[in-house]
């Protein structure tokens, strides 16, 4: 046991370095602004609504971090989709505007999970990289008497490595994650909770925090309050909520970057991303086996998941100011009416004339 924890420590150091490497994830942000026209902001992100039929479109993105990423042209991994009733199907990726994309319909209300998995063997090590996305379908028009169980996360037993976001207290389809919220993620391997998996959360602004999962496989983060209203104010012309432009973030982080390189990453029509955190989990097991004839002694599983959070309601709002404004209204009319009444007690005014 002791040996194991020490080895883990070493491993953790190694792997944290490896995290700086390229990551892969599924995002619902289209690579091209033009594509936005067909999409609508709904609960849980962008959806396409065609004649009351909801569908979700996800794009595979790759990069060193949220602010330095681009869509992927082709994808060769396997794709799995789990619907709200936890039935798993295997849809295929398609290529839309030179980007690998997964499109699926969401007939029922609830959460759909999409998984994209790539496997490869390098240096006797099996790398299994899974990009996971949770897509929500909820339409207020269908009412709010839905089964509350649908809010719970779905879990895929056959996932190479599964991570699920445990729900907030009293979470429903309308709940948004705010800065400062305490998020809990549960890591499962072969359908059993995994302790000591390395879980890292990275925000769009470059805040990184990592931890390991506990005995129950749970990793806990408190989202940093880095998403301030001031940033998104600059972006309010954009129709889709509060996205923040890549370029702006780069400046804000004062990370010197070559403009040419950046342009390459973000494509011609740079899309502001509303993804603002990327969760990744890495778990290494001493597994032996073969993949396409290549043997391996060790297996490294990673899974990524994207999420977004909004500025904290308390952080970006002011009750004191609210009271000040209502007080101002109260006093304006109150004093105004009092003065008016007082003035009315004097003999009434003459009719005025304008000589011009």
């Amino acid at each position, binding site marked *: 046991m002791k040996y194991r924890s020490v080895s883990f420590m070493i491993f953790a150091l190694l792997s944290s370095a490896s995290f700086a490497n390229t990551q892969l994830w599924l995002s619902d942000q289209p690579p091209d602004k033009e594509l936005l026209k067909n999409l609508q902001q709904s609960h849980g992100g962008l959806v396409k609504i065609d004649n009351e039929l909801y569908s979700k479109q996800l794009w595979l993105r790759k990069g060193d971090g949220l602010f330095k990423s681009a869509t992927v042209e082709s994808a060769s991994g396997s794709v799995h989709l789990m619907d709200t009733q936890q039935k798993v199907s295997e849809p295929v990726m398609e290529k839309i505007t030179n980007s690998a994309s997964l499109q699926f319909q969401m007939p029922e209300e609830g959460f759909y999970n999409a998984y994209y998995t790539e496997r490869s063997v390098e240096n006797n090590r099996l790398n299994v990289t899974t990009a996971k996305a949770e897509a929500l379908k909820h339409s207020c028009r269908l009412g709010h*008497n839905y089964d509350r169980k649908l809010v719970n996360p779905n879990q895929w037993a056959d996932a190479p490595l599964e991570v699920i976001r445990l729900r907030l207290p009293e979470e429903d389809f309308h709940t948004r994650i705010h800065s400062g919220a305490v998020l809990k993620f549960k890591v499962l391997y072969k359908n059993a909770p995994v302790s000591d998996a390395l879980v890292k959360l990275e925000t769009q602004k470059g805040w990184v925090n990592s931890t390991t999962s506990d005995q129950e496989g749970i990793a806990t983060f408190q989202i940093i309050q880095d998403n301030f209203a001031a940033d998104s104010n600059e972006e309010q012309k954009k129709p889709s909520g509060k996205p923040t432009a890549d370029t702006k973030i780069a400046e804000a982080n004062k990370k010197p970057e070559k403009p040419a390189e950046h342009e390459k990453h973000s494509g011609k029509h740079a899309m502001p991303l509303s993804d603002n955190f990327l969760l990744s989990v890495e778990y290494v097991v001493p597994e032996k086996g073969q993949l396409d004839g290549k043997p391996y002694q060790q297996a490294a599983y990673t899974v990524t998941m994207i999420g977004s959070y909004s500025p904290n309601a308390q952080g970006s*709002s002011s009750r004191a100011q609210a009271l000040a404004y209502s007080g101002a209204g*109260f006093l304006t009319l109150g004093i105004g009416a009092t003065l008016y009444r007082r003035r009315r007690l004097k003999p009434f005014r003459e009719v005025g004339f304008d000589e011009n």
Partner: protein
Amino acid sequence: MKIKAAIDHMDLRRFRFWFQLSAFLLLVYGGRLAINLGTSLPTFSCGYNKSGTAGVCYLLPLQHQLAQPWERLFSPAGVMVLSGLGIFLLWFVALNKAWCGFICPLGTIQDWITALRKKMGIRYSTYTDEQFKKLSLIKYVFLLILIFVPLAIGGQFLSHDWGTPFCQLCPARMIIPLFNGDFSQWVIDFSSTGRMVLTALGMFITGLFLIGSFLKKRFFCFFCPMGAFHYIFSKLSIFKLKKEGDKCTVCGDCYRVCDMQIKPIADDVVSKDILMDDCILCLKCVASCPEQGALRVDILGKTVFESTKGGFVKRMGLEAKK
């Protein structure tokens, strides 16, 4: 006939108080008992009162629906907007503007504030004719805002931050949730310019509302776009306020008790259908009219409540004590 006489002689003030109180409890706390009257109510049953509301004011879903992308709104799918309107109309047609005078929780709150003022012995304010004419246009401005701002959002001319503009301005959003201990709407949202402007204005209007309804009877109803929206459809209603001009002596009793200062109720002796756009159908005019049958309420052409000398005498406390 006895029943009719009893209705005509009723103490409207007391009846309204209890009716309004019941409606208030139903709409503001009914949600706790899982009462759900839908989202097309023609009254300010505020949807922001999440924990208690028993139904949602139609203006909230209306603004949501109108903010859809135009391709969708002006497609067959847009019919859905009409279905919401249909349900709204069904509710509305039954009671006409009596929704305002008898059910609206915000109206009831204003009446309570008025009662407080009366307790304190402070006089009420009135608008002059000039002020009345100018101010009465504000509700139409609100109506235009709540229709065209969402449409502009749907057409991608405006950001979603300007969504549900009227709800952001409406004092009901601030006031009604308070009755469930929910203070969360009393904030200014700095997350975007749009939100900030709207919430700041909303708070200012809430301040105006609190003092305004203290000084002026039914202060906010005068600016209420729901009232203006009602008026568009009021002719369809089965609930009518009628006037028999020949029986009217133009004494102005009805005008003087009118919370909304509607002058034609006294001066117009030609119109039969006397419901005006500012009317809240509180029926105080009918109750204060001393002329037999000069003012009356018809439901489906049947008179249910009319002005009677006996009723007037009873309500004015002129009956000889026995």
